[in-house]
């Protein structure tokens, strides 16, 4: 009896569970196969599976009730742009000699190079030191206090260091009584939020404080008197329909805002300061970024008012560590900051030059913008593989870890489906799908500023710690 003479049945209908490669092999051979996408949750680690079982089991009813309230708060509230003011006048618990930074709290000795440079520039701009060398001594000695912006109801982009005189946007969420803050965007070029500390970078901070802030305040007053305060997320929703993810790309939304502001910009006159301000505005395609961030922070603060939810309410990176907060808890769950993958670099740079992920802007991903809105943004698609299908996949992945679709941020190319929001820590750990954050990339050591942009994937460890903390009522409930 030869090998070839022995026969299997000539027909088989196959159901494949788990690894898709077996289904593909059968399909290649022309057989019918039904593939079931199944795997043991969270890499089969027993303690994680046990924590998921508890979170989806006996406590799920309470979690679901709390999550439903969080969904309403994140989706329905309308944060208003009510003011632009020096940080020291509005941000709670901001000391006289204190700098706020992105991500979890950090000691100066562990601060990454781009953020150190930004801090030194801020110290000089605040007038606490005459030059960056003296600023380094002050920072190293601990004379200048450091604080995590998120712990002060504030979010800052990239390597921003925010001092008491930094002008900040004020976003009022009247439905919840929360107030979020974010600095006026510094714009492109030699600027500290990209890790620069040159004289031009310091001058930009002084310009924002002395020139831009008073003019922006006048413009906001004019807007408020003519139309009432700006509904930040309503304008962002228009931007999403025009191709913005309102994180990496805010061009459409910025243009919409500048159009609204135009009569009041013209009313500023043609003095040197106003012309310089207009020039800054015309070159700043990310002008809306921090306005949206302040609004998003006011929304996540309202989510933190709800005890007992499993929704991620903070996701932030300081270039050294990455931290998340879950539900109402103020506990940071911290792990190493991830590299920015899926990146496009300026000529002459590569991943070897890149600093680790930094910035609080991931707050946007928590409310349905950024990576969650990638499917509608051709500009962002370039960083996610190049095709709109790749961008759609990023949004679809976010859908798998989110609890709801937005009723205000709609993606035209996907039949006006809402962007996913309300990231559920249980789903992140269960599926292993980490939220994607669209972001810029800074040089890790040269002080050369931005060298590219890309997509960072949040590390799983912080979410796992957050899941385990759900067992601790004191931390979450």
């Amino acid at each position, binding site marked *: 009896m030869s090998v070839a003479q022995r026969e299997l049945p000539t027909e088989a209908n196959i159901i494949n569970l788990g690894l898709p490669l077996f289904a593909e092999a059968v399909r290649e051979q022309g057989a019918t196969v039904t593939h079931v996408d199944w795997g043991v949750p969270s890499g089969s680690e027993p303690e994680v599976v046990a924590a998921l079982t508890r979170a989806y089991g006996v406590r799920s009813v309470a979690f679901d009730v709390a999550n439903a309230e969080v969904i309403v708060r994140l989706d329905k509230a309308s944060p208003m742009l009510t003011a632009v003011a020096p940080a020291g006048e509005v941000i709670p618990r901001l000391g006289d000699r204190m700098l706020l930074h992105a991500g979890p709290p950090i000691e100066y000795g562990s601060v990454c190079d781009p953020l150190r440079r930004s801090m030194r520039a801020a110290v000089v701009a605040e007038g606490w030191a005459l030059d960056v060398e003296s600023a380094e001594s002050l920072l190293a000695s601990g004379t200048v206090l450091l604080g995590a912006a998120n712990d002060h109801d504030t979010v800052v982009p990239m390597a921003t260091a925010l001092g008491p005189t930094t002008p900040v946007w004020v976003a009022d969420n009247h439905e919840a009584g929360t107030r979020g803050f974010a600095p006026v965007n510094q714009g492109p070029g030699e600027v500290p939020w990209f890790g620069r500390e040159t004289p031009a970078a310091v001058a930009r901070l002084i310009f924002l404080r002395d020139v831009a802030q008073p003019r922006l305040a006048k413009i906001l007053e004019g807007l408020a008197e003519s139309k009432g305060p700006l509904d930040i997320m309503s304008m962002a929703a228009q931007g999403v329909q025009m191709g913005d993810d309102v994180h990496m790309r805010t061009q459409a939304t910025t243009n919409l805002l500048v159009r609204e502001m135009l009569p009041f910009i013209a009313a500023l006159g043609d003095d040197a300061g106003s012309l310089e301000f207009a020039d800054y505005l015309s070159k700043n395609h990310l002008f809306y970024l921090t306005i949206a961030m302040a609004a998003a922070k006011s929304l996540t603060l309202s989510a933190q008012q709800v005890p007992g939810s499993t929704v991620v309410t903070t996701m932030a990176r300081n270039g050294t560590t990455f931290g998340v907060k879950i539900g109402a808890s103020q506990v940071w769950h911290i792990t190493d900051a*991830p590299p920015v993958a899926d990146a496009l670099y300026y000529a002459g740079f590569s991943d070897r030059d890149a600093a680790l992920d930094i910035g609080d802007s991931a707050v946007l991903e928590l409310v349905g913008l950024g990576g969650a809105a990638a499917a509608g943004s051709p500009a962002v698609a370039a960083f996610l593989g190049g095709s709109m299908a790749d961008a759609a996949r990023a949004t679809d992945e976010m859908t798998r870890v989110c609890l709801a679709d937005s009723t205000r941020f709609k993606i035209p190319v996907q039949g006006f489906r809402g962007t996913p929001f309300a990231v559920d820590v249980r789903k992140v750990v269960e599926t292993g799908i980490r939220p994607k954050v669209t972001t810029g990339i800074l040089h890790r050591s040269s002080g050369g500023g931005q060298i590219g942009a890309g997509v960072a994937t949040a590390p799983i460890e912080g979410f796992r710690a957050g899941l385990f903390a759900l067992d601790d009522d004191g931390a979450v409930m």
Partner: protein
Amino acid sequence: MRPPPDIGRAVKEIVAKDGQGEVIAVFSRASYVGIDATIVALLSTSEASGPLHARVQNPPKVRLGDRAVVAGGRLYIGGGLVDLPSLCWEPEPLPSGAPIAGILGDLLMHEPVLDLGSAGGGSLATSLERALDRGGIGEACQGIFGRGAGLTPSGDDVAAGLLLADALHGLSDDATRLAIVADAPTHAISRAFLAEAARGQSIEPMHRLLAACALRDLPAANSARTELAAIGHTSGLDLAYGALVGFRHAADVAAAARPARLMTSRALAQITA
């Protein structure tokens, strides 16, 4: 004690040119990354070396579907850089002409379980030897590809042993063996291991077993057999079984190729007397 971190021949070739793919399977001891048309097996240094293996100090935790990119000689999975060692593993060379099949047959003591149907009679080895005689390595492999259980089906493991023996003896050429593998009705991971066997490389204990048999070093051969027995459900021993059949066949081919001794008239007289 295992040797230091290393990569196999195929991994070295994969990282030599830019490409991309994704994690296609994750197990407790190994993760498999599909890149272009081949596979990298990512595992710790506590596992054996092999042609598709990247043995690293601390294998990154990867997940099914994680994107893999090879760029500038580096491998990134899920956005993180995999720290690949520079050392490239090469199998232990076999002493030329040494008899292997005899001692290998004595110590293997294993019969693969293939779902070849209930109608057959005789051993699998007999079936394979007849297929080799009749249609060569192609017919023998095609009858067993994809059959049996395991991540790499037992039939594929046996076929890999046949291909390895064929390659080490040079009975057919690489192109012929790779063409046989290209049509194998099996999945991507198994096909990648088959292709490497067709090019003359398999997992390190397999090569060590063959070398020990060639040197008649029984303790070393038994040690290698024990290691093979711990690989997969029965993959390691199925592989060795295929190699055994292949080496026996190679010995038969070599014997048949030797010139026939001329019968002397005295000998003829003894037979016919």
